[in-house]
């Protein structure tokens, strides 16, 4: 491809444009760093001269830019090393001592300080890139800040003649990668002789290898120890000449035994050494073991302990560096030096990183790096735990003398899949189990399963060295985990998915929080508490279980978050308050009501449930059905009755599918729960249908539910079954009363139809919507139904007097009974029912003074059973008192406010005959609250409706016609402008009444 060799005659190959051939050559030469003259080409090919000029100039620009902008390591020829000058700044270069992917290391003299240093000169290929240059400078600076006995000190960095370099402490030592290689060849008789890579006459690799095999490396050696080791060094020399015995370390060990410092440690070592010397001198290990297994070496105990100490020291240094926010990123045996004093040194701190991979790609050196890189690092990420992983691999290789991976290159394809260690050499060897465990923990594929920091790693190594129990679990969690992941891809992906979901929930919570300002701090706390709890629990579990349970717990957590959100939402703004679970602990309600945002939130949560269900083998239909029901509940409370009904239908359909597919057995607990869930949904559907004015549907649902209960004898007999039945009957019965209730929230009137007595299934007398049964007829049937509900509930309360939900339901049924009795004109019956209902609630309040739900229930009962009669004033006064108490604790709670407004409005009616001004005053107070509620929750119809209702009454009470007109105009305005479609639909019916009022006012004098 060289221009000079090719001559001029090959310019036309018949395929390519002749100038293209020249241009390619020109570009290649530029990429090699040459500066070929364009005129040279013009002269040679005058026929293309002008084209050559244009094209080549353009190429020169593009190439210059592209080589600056893109890392051009790929094309930088490895041979193009700059000739190293004899002097580089302050440094006089003596000789080359090593070569790496990033550059060449020289021994040099720093002239100003008269000291010998190691000078690393960065490859031009690496340093051309501006970005790399800056990074190099920055990292050299941070590395220079590290001062540790096991870290090669970086003195400084500089740039001379365009060459970047840094100076560091010169270590008279060898790399552990050379040591490993040497040991392999020593212990494997047939292996090719290794030639020393660093030709040094001071301290040979073999010395180092023998050193590790024979002596004990003292940790944090003081000067005395160093000296001692210097003396003992002679023995390495001797043994290095004598190839056959590395077991002849007796002298060295014995010499050490005399050393006074670190007495405790030494005793331990003495013991170890002695035992070792015996065994190894009697039975040379290498040949024996190589017979059995060519890949496994039986290494003397001392070696294993020495390695553990070395690695512990490195871990200590890593911890130090990590604390200063410096990662090494390229821990490998080639970057660990062992000097003649037995000290291990980490070199290239913070300097080797991705760019090393770049430039090393072509030389094959990347293989060396790839092998030690943590999976997440290969994938481009990782934190301090990547260094722990790499050090773990070093430990692995030092212990087994075999590469950790059979095919490290494959890790490039899929690091997680191809990072499964070749554990057999580790297991087959005589390496103590604890050390195996430590090694595997450090090299866990998932960073979460590694040591969390280098000091934990170090600690376990030290515990091992002291023969104390290590902290890593002895289970072989590494293999178990990978196996588990293979076995359970579904759960593994569930773990991932639920992780995503949690994040999403958190995000939604954040957004929602902003919208609702006051509300969600408690939920957040709850959420956090759950998470901490989960974290603590997970820690205690075994790793495999932990992973699985984390997946499940995440799901549970998501469900809990959903529950918490739901509870918060559900317990807000319920003027129809019916579904607060009195058994559960009361949430401290904050002052928000239901809004579109709530529905959006729940719907998005719901879609996650569906996703979870689809993507995982885990059956989530139960949870999904439950979620749909809850969404329905919220929609119902918001007055979105059609949507709510749809949600309930979805829930019901799901539950029915489950019942069909599961081996449904109504006699067992699961079957009964399933039945109860269906009944629960049906119960709500009765309510929505009735509220939508679809009594026919309500009755069908009621019958359906009743059939379900009665289909299972066990359920029908059980207290849950009876309770469900009582609630069903009560709700269908109370609706017949509610539709004609004179006051309170107006339920849109729709076609009502006759419904038969509960036991007349199949023979119902359906009539057309036009044929309304007489009011007393409905009242009669309602009464009958309510009586049935009452008798069941009374029984239940007698059986379980402490069950609050039974008691509350009974109180409610009695409250309905008050209504029915009044409709019948049976006043004494009504009073009796009311006082019973109130006494039940009062005793609940007394028993649970903290539970505001009961107080609310009591107040609500006092309000709704009160009419406009003056004698009701006493109860209303009590209700107002309770409301004020409640509001003291939660001044913005919308449910409490709404109830108070209703109480005020009724009080106003009760006061009207006696004191018109007082009545007016009370009603004005009510409208103030209602106005506030409407402003805060414009999409909740009931608040707008209540206000309009109150304004209409104001026009009736207001003596001044001008003021009355004002109120009327305000009401008109609200009806005309309020809220979305849902609210608008609810307000339209008022329009007629308003017009009527206006006519009345206009005609008045």
């Amino acid at each position: 491809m060289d221009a000079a060799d090719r001559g001029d005659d090959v310019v036309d190959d018949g395929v390519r444009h002749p100038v293209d051939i020249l241009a390619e050559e020109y570009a290649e030469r530029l990429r090699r760093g040459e500066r070929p003259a364009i005129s040279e080409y013009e002269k040679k090919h005058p026929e293309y001269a002008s084209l050559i000029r244009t094209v080549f100039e353009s190429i020169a620009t593009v190439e210059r830019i592209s080589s600056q902008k893109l890392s051009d390591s790929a094309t930088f020829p490895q041979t193009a090393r700059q000739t190293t000058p004899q002097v580089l700044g302050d440094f006089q270069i003596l000789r080359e001592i090593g070569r790496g992917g990033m550059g060449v290391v020289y021994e040099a003299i720093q002239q100003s300080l008269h000291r010998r240093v190691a000078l690393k000169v960065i490859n031009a290929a690496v340093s051309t890139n501006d970005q790399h240059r800056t990074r190099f400078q920055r990292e050299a600076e941070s590395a220079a800040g590290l001062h540790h006995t096991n870290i090669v000190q970086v003195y400084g960095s500089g740039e001379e003649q365009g060459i970047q370099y840094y100076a560091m402490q010169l270590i008279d030592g060898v790399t552990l990668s050379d040591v490993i290689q040497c040991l392999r060849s020593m212990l494997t008789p047939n292996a090719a002789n290794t030639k020393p890579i660093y030709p040094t006459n001071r301290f040979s690799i073999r010395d180092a290898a023998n050193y590790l095999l024979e002596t004990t490396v003292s940790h944090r050696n003081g000067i005395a120890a160093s000296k001692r080791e210097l003396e003992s060094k002679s023995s390495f020399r001797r043994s290095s000449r004598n190839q056959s015995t590395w077991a002849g370390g007796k002298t060295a060990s014995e010499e050490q035994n005399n050393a006074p410092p670190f007495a405790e440690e030494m005793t331990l070592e003495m013991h170890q050494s002695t035992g070792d010397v015996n065994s190894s001198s009697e039975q040379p290990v290498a040949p024996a073991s190589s017979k059995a297994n060519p890949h496994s070496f039986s290494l003397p105990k001392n070696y294993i302990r020495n390695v553990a100490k070395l690695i512990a020291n490195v871990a200590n240094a890593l911890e130090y560096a990590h604390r200063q926010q410096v990662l090494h990123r390229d821990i490998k045996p080639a970057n660990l030096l062992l000097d003649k004093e037995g000290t291990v040194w980490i070199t290239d701190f913070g300097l080797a990183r991705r760019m090393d991979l770049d430039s090393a790609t072509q030389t094959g050196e990347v293989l060396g790096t790839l092998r030690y890189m943590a999976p997440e690092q290969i994938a481009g990420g990782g934190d301090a735990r990547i260094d722990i992983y790499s050090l773990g691999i070093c430990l692995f290789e030092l212990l087994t003398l075999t590469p950790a991976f059979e095919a490290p290159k494959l890790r490039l394809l899929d690091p997680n899949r191809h990072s499964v260690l070749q554990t057999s050499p580790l297991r087959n060897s005589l390496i103590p189990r604890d050390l195996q465990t430590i090694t595997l923990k450090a090299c866990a594929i998932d960073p979460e399963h590694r040591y969390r920091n280098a000091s934990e790693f170090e600690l376990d190594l030290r515990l091992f060295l002291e023969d104390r129990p290590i902290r890593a679990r002895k289970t072989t969690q590494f293999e178990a985990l990978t196996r588990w992941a293979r076995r359970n891809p579904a759960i593994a992906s569930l773990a991932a998915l639920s992780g995503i979901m949690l994040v999403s929930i958190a995000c939604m919570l954040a957004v929602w929080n902003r919208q609702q300002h006051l509300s969600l701090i408690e939920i957040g706390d709850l959420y956090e508490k759950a998470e901490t709890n989960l974290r603590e629990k997970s820690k205690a579990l075994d790793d495999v279980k932990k992973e699985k349970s984390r997946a499940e717990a995440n799901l549970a957590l998501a469900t809990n978050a959903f529950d918490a959100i739901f509870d918060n939402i559900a317990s807000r703004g319920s003027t129809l308050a019916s579904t607060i679970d009195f058994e559960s602990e009361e949430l401290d309600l904050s002052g928000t009501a239901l809004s579109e945002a709530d529905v959006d939130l729940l719907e998005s949560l719901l879609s996650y449930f569906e996703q979870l269900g689809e993507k995982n083998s885990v059956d989530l239909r139960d949870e999904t059905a439950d979620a749909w029901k809850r969404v329905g509940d919220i929609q119902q409370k918001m007055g979105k009755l059609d949507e709510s009904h749809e949600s309930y239908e979805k829930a019901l359909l799901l539950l029915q599918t489950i019942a069909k597919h599961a081996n449904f057995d109504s006699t067992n607990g699961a079957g009964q729960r399933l039945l109860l869930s269906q009944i629960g949904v049906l119960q709500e559907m009765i309510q929505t249908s009735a509220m939508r004015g679809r009594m026919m549907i309500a009755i069908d649902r009621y019958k359906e539910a009743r059939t379900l209960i009665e289909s299972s004898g066990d359920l029908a007999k059980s207290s849950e079954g009876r309770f469900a039945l009582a609630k069903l009957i009560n709700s269908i019965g109370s609706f017949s009363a509610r539709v004609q209730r004179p006051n309170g929230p107006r339920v849109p009137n729709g076609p009502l139809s006759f419904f038969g007595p509960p036991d007349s299934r199949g023979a119902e007398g359906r009539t057309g919507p036009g044929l309304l049964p007489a009011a007393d007829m409905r009242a009669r049937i309602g009464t009958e139904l309510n009586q049935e509900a009452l008798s069941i509930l009374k029984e239940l309360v007698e059986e379980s007097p402490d069950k609050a939900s039974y008691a509350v339901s009974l109180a409610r049924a009695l409250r309905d009974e008050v209504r029915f009795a009044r409709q019948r004109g049976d006043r004494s019956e009504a009073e009796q029912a009311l006082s019973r209902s109130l006494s039940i609630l009062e005793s609940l309040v007394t028993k649970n003074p903290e539970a505001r739900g009961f107080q609310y229930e009591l107040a609500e009962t006092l309000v709704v059973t009160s009419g406009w009669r003056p004698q009701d004033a006493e109860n209303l006064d009590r209700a107002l008192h309770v409301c004020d108490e409640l509001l003291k604790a939660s001044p913005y709670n919308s449910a409490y406010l709404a109830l108070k407004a209703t109480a005020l409005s009724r009080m106003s009616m009760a006061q009207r005959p006696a004191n018109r001004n007082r009545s007016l005053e009370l009603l004005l107070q009510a409208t103030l609250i209602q106005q506030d509620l409407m402003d805060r929750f414009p999409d909740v119809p009931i608040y707008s409706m209540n206000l309009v209702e109150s304004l209409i009454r104001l026009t009736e009470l207001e003596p001044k016609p001008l003021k009355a007109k004002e109120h009327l105009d305000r009401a008109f305005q609200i009806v005309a402008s309020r809220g979305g479609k849902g609210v608008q639909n609810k307000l339209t019916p008022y329009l007629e009444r308003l017009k009527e009022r206006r006519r009345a006012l206009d005609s008045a004098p």
Partner: protein
Amino acid sequence: MAATGPRNAMFPQEPLSIEDEREFLRKGGEAALADALLFYHSKLERIVQFRMEPALRARIDTADVLQESYLQISRRAQEFIDGVPVSLFVWIRQRVVQTLIDMQRIHFSDKRNANREKELPSTDYGQTSCLSIARFLLDDRTSPSMAAARSEEFERLQSALQAMNDTDREVLAMRHFEQLNNLQVAEALNLSPTAASNRYIRAVAKLGDIMKTLSTKDA
């Protein structure tokens, strides 16, 4: 230590025929593929660096893209072995570029706006050479005094590049920013080597003209 690792299937430096490449992968399996990827690694890295949207760069790293690409490639290696009409490198490159495009799509899909829409790949090759080239060429020319004029200039250069034939522009980008040779360009774009070569000369001459106009305006 590095040199002692098993290196059973080293990817040969000299070019192989497509048939030989297939054979190499078929016999060598994943190890062979890894070898090939390693061999092309920095070239591919360069391509990703060039092609990646600057906005994406803040979110993902070149290594992320390559990692994902390698996963895809190792899953789909059989496609190559079964026979695609291009050489191994060109096939690998296509997979990498496709992965990049997919990743960009995923990253941008959440926040689509008109502006981004415009930047999304729209040519037949699903690539964004025009913008990438303009960006690179102009980054180089940005000096403090020119900073103000930069965006206007960018617009001009971009529209000049836009005026070029799509394929020509692509050829230019591949030859210089991705450092592909003519044959590889021809394969990747499904052109005859002669056509690719002619287009290249045309494009590079045209680019020279554009750059000249820009620099005279600067002066």
